[in-house]
């Protein structure tokens, strides 16, 4: 089956991103396809490359980036939610006159239409939130 995943909360504060990651990993291990992982609300904060979690803790952002690289996953951060919360790629930073960008590898910024499309194209959409 093709899964769409929606992550509504940021890393660490809620377990949502963890559960979503474990679900995605398990689905891939079973031979399913992840059509897209969409990050909304504070979920966009899963896409910042500036986190430095304690050495003895899981690195949530890196884990997503690595899973994406390994399985060619489409990790999409909502542009509207990202703008509110200060998550930028280079193009967005330039567009808005910001002096830095912070998006992590494997993530891309796009519109809410990508979430709707995932709902349409995937066989199942699973929401993880706080």
């Amino acid at each position, binding site marked *: *089956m093709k*899964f769409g995943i929606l992550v*509504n909360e940021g890393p660490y504060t809620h*377990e*949502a991103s963890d*559960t979503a990651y*474990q*679900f995605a*990993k*398990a*689905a891939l*291990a*079973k031979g*399913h396809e992840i059509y897209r992982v969409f990050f909304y609300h504070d979920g966009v904060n899963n896409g910042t490359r500036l986190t430095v979690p304690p050495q003895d803790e899981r690195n949530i952002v890196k884990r997503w980036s690595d899973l994406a690289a390994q399985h060619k996953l489409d990790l999409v951060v909502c542009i509207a939610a990202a703008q509110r919360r200060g998550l930028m790629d280079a193009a967005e930073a330039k567009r808005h006159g910001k002096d830095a960008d912070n998006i992590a590898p494997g993530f891309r910024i796009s519109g809410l239409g990508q979430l709707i499309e995932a709902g349409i194209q995937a066989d*199942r*959409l*699973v*929401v*993880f*939130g*706080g």
Partner: protein
Amino acid sequence: MLHTVNKSPFDHNTFETCLKFARQGSAVLLIEDGVYAAAADTAVSKRVQEALKSVSIYALKPDVEARGMQNRVMDGVRLVDYGGFVDLVVEHNAVQSWL
């Protein structure tokens, strides 16, 4: 329909709301803090027993174990791992996450 509940039943009414809208024959998967509803001999255990007459109730094992509840799971609540979570999603037409 598969329903998921991620909040403790003692602090939030999410679990109760889920049960209100879960139709006969649906499945409820307790995840994250929601697994506390699976513990035996609590203030909600009777409610859970009653619900088991019409819906299947599962709890996510890694979350149960993380919270030290593995020896307290009530009869009738089935434990699943993340793979089992995936299987439940495949098995049901849609998923409703109660947050």
